[in-house]
């Protein structure tokens, strides 16, 4: 029995070690003299577009490598002000960028995109959601972002504009996890960005929110002061703001700021 316990504990330790190393193991390839590796912290709603922009940027700048850490803007801002090794920060709301700027970790952010909200439902629409007003119904299970995450802030604005109170069943860490709850059919509806519905394709059905009720958020981008790859970081930021970058964002459903 003791031997079994020891083995179990040892295995648990190995499993735990495996988890943590895979989490932080992405920092293995450090900068080479010719090109640089930059780390971009970007809002979860930018997952698709920035991954594509990163590939295009790497093609246009041979030798440079772009790595991404996608997550909730609020969480990324907290990580950056705690000293996380980011070179560029792209936030889904000015408030989270302001937090980084006021901590002295970035300056002169520039807005590069604008996003509005849409209701996402599973394709078979089990909650029979036909308008954003249906989200106030008790029978409709709704997933929202945490209130401090931009998608949670903007969703609250929409509900205020419409004049409804929504009691969600879960508050998710970021917009992509809201989308996942919708895709898996565990909720009847989720408040996500227009771009998320578009990116999800046939996995979800979008219910448009009338422009008069909808709310939007601006996406600012800035380089991080402690970056050791300043020129590459600036180059990536310029690429996002360039016509080529804007084309990718527009194609994904983002609007111009």
């Amino acid at each position, binding site marked *: 029995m*003791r031997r*079994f316990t020891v083995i179990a504990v040892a295995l*648990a330790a190995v499993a735990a070690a495996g*988890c943590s190393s895979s989490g932080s193991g992405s920092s293995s390839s450090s900068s080479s003299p010719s090109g640089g590796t930059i780390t971009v912290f970007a809002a979860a709603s930018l997952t698709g577009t920035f991954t594509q922009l990163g590939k295009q940027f790497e093609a246009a700048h041979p030798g440079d490598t772009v790595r991404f850490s996608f997550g909730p803007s609020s969480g990324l801002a907290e990580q950056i002000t705690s000293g996380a090794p980011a070179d560029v920060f792209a936030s889904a709301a000015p408030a989270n960028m302001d937090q980084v700027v006021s901590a002295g970790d970035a300056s002169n952010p520039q807005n590069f995109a604008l996003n509005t909200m849409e209701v996402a439902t599973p394709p078979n629409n089990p909650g029979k959601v036909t308008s954003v007003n249906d989200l106030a119904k008790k029978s409709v*299970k709704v997933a929202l972002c*945490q209130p401090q995450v931009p998608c949670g802030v903007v969703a609250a604005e929409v509900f205020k504009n419409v004049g409804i109170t929504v009691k969600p*069943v879960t508050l998710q*860490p970021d917009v992509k996890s809201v989308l996942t709850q919708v895709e*898996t059919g*565990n909720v009847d509806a989720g408040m996500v960005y227009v771009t998320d519905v578009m990116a999800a394709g046939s996995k979800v059905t979008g219910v448009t929110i009338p422009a008069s009720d909808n709310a939007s958020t601006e996406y600012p981008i800035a380089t991080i002061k402690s970056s050791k790859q300043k020129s590459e970081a600036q180059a990536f930021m310029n690429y996002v703001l360039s016509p080529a970058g804007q084309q990718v964002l527009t194609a994904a459903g983002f609007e111009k700021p």
Partner: protein
Amino acid sequence: MTVAAPSHLTARERARRAARGGASRSVPAPLLAPALIAVGFLVLPLIGLLIRAPWGSIGAALSGADATQALILSLWTATATTAISLVIGVPLAWVLARTSFPGQRLLRALVTLPLVLPPVVGGVALLLAFGRTGFIGQYLNSWFGLTIPFTPLAVVMAETFVAMPFLIITVEGALRSADQGFEEAAATLGARRMTVFRRVTVPMVAPSLGAGAVLCWARALGEFGATITFAGSFPGQTETMPIAVYYALETDPDAAIALSLVLLVVSVIVLVSLRDHWLRGGSL
């Protein structure tokens, strides 16, 4: 120790002898340095928590509505998890320890798998089984209108999935090493099998039952990955202490540290209550 201890000694006696013998021995430098690094690595983060703790406003940080709700939710779900694990886990431990049937080793491996499985994988598995479109969940939903995710029930299920195996292996081990002569004596004196179980077996393994229950409770209290994956997160419904700590770090770091301190204190209490089993090297 280079000399093997006599094998007839119990683990506890061996540990005591080792402790007595080792106390006066000097530690070789090649062992001392890494040992000190290990101590520093394990202890320094805890000191960091204590240094940064907002001692002046700790009461205010903990009395926030979300913190109180998270604390209450965590305490009762961990307790419910332990109760359920005692009711269904102890009989399973008995079956594993006292019977033999084909496939028993496989069964033991299966039910102790959550010990080594990353909890978030457990959460995904629970979602695929009991989620609204899961292979069991879809019938619960269409037949009874019951959806488990995002309810406190989901929290208890996630915690039970992760924590119950700790109780099972602890009790199973105790049952295996317990002297079955007493049970046989009771049986020959005419006691029914359930009476033997209640009056002889359970009292005999009571210390391990207690240790397993405390271990199970502590593991349930700390559960994060399976819970957030299967139960989601909503204050008062499914947002347990560890999840509250995780989110509070983004919005209110002082509250996150205060909540962490509470969990640290609980952990210390658990360790103290288990000291006979672990700190003195006794067998589980």
